[in-house]
């Protein structure tokens, strides 16, 4: 049981550090921003980017706090790449692998698997074609019941595949109050998105 005990200490330490404010938070100013050197977006207001244990692989921003709302940027996920690493202790789980020939439905299923791997539940509310990154893309709306606090989350994402790479902007927040507050802002930001160079 040593591995289990070790993991518990690591997780506890990570959580304590995060809750104590030791997770790295940096301000993202309004105006034009470049995410991972490739995705250019125009911001109406400031955001906060957080890194560390509670963030994922991809740049993740928040306005209200990292356990409340999240704006995730998937930038240039290549064919065969993984959307996210496995959860701690879940190395036996099927990896969340992106394939360049995925259709929008399959990309949504991939994101759905990412959001539900902790036992949360996902419902697709809307999937429609939109213009994104100055070309064809799609927009999806979803609802999640978050397992860890039983809160109903609403989410929306814009995504497109360019040159065999996946680009996506996904926002999620509690359905009541928070999500409606930022929905229009996210739409505007996503519509401003373009690739650099």
């Amino acid at each position, binding site marked *: *049981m040593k591995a289990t005990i070790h993991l518990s200490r690591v*997780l506890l330490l990570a*959580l304590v550090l995060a809750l104590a404010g030791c997770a790295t938070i940096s301000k993202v100013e309004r105006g034009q921003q470049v995410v991972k050197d490739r995705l250019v977006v125009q911001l109406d207001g400031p955001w906060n980017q957080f890194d560390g244990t509670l963030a994922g692989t991809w740049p993740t921003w928040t306005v209200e706090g990292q356990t409340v709302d999240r704006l995730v940027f998937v930038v240039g996920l290549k064919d065969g790449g993984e959307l996210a690493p496995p959860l701690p202790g879940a190395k*036996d*789980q099927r990896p969340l692998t992106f394939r360049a020939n995925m259709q929008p*439905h399959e990309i949504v*299923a991939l994101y759905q*698997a990412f959001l539900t791997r902790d036992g949360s539940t996902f419902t697709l509310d809307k999937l429609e074609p939109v213009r994104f990154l100055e070309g064809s893309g799609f927009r999806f709306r979803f609802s999640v019941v978050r397992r860890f606090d*039983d809160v109903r989350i609403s989410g929306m994402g814009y995504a497109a595949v360019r040159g065999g790479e996946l680009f996506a902007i996904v926002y999620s927040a509690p359905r009541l109050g928070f999500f409606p507050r930022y929905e229009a802002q996210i739409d505007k930001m996503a519509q401003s998105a373009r690739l650099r160079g």
Partner: protein
Amino acid sequence: MKRRPFLMWGCAHCALLAASAARAQVTPPAAWTQPPRFAAPHPGSDEGGLWAQMAREEQRLRRGASVIRDPKLDAYLKAVSCRLVGDHCEDLRVYAVRTPLFNAVMAPNGMMQIWSGLLLRVENEAQLATIVGHEAGHYLQRHSVERLRDAKSRSAAMTFFAAFGLVGALAQLLAVAGLYSYSRDQEREADRVGLVLMQRAGYDTREAAKVWDNLLDELKARPGADPEKDSILFATHPGIAERRDALVQMAQPDGEVGEAALREALKPAQPMLLADELARGQYDQTIALLDRLVAREPQRADLRYTRGEARRLRADGNDVMLAVDDFKQTIALAEPPPAVYRSLGLVYRDQRQRDAAVQSFSRYLELAPDAADAGMIKSYLEELPS
């Protein structure tokens, strides 16, 4: 040492049923005496505080979004638990919770959660009773109180609370890490008590071993998986064959299985259970599960469709070809879900089979004009080359 969250989430309380069966032979199950109903503990005691905490969590669960609100299912689960625990019937409250993982959780105040992933996997009432009986065993033996009093460090106490699905990032992290479980001795005792309860209630105890077998088959489905070698559960307990043999020896024939009763109780929830299973993205396990379910009920279109969709999304080897077979067979059965036409259309679109794609997508929109993805499907139809 590798861990398997699926097992941790799914088996921390339940799957050790089999593990302790071998030892249960040492103490004949019939020797156990059921305790009388418990009085509520004094509010000032540690146990009283624990009950108060659990009462608050139960209130939160009742109001929350994840509890499955199905009065008939509630009544059925209640009936199964009452049949098992007799005099304690009024003290146990069973909630079906929408979480697509194999798990059940027992709180010391009598709140029991049965997760939807478990409901999808049990094949009959006797298998459900295996789980409910095991969880009731924890309650009747007051294992939580023992556990609380053993929780001497702060981290251990937090881990303890996390086990009951309490809210908060800490609880979640700890639960994901699979840190909590009852002690092995407590699990053995709960197994033994559970089997006694099943036997006295007239259930076929041979079904307990099948719960174990079925779960193992799923865990082995992932290529390269070796539960016996990799899993913390299997690594620290006797071999599978030993456990299975022990269960077979303990089994009491001629009990009730109750397949039809379970099927009827779960019928309204089936679309949700299957959709949630698919959403997990664990297609190897899902296909293994659906292989079993399809074999049991080959006439069910929803099962065959779900297996086909899992194959289509996994898309390994000849999966897509097998998926198309499943979709075609689904359509030939009664009440095929409209989504089967969408899935076929997606395959044909990917294979540049224009006419077949158009036909399938059109049929989907005809059957489900208000579908969430109708706009996307219409765009596919517009862009398909003529």
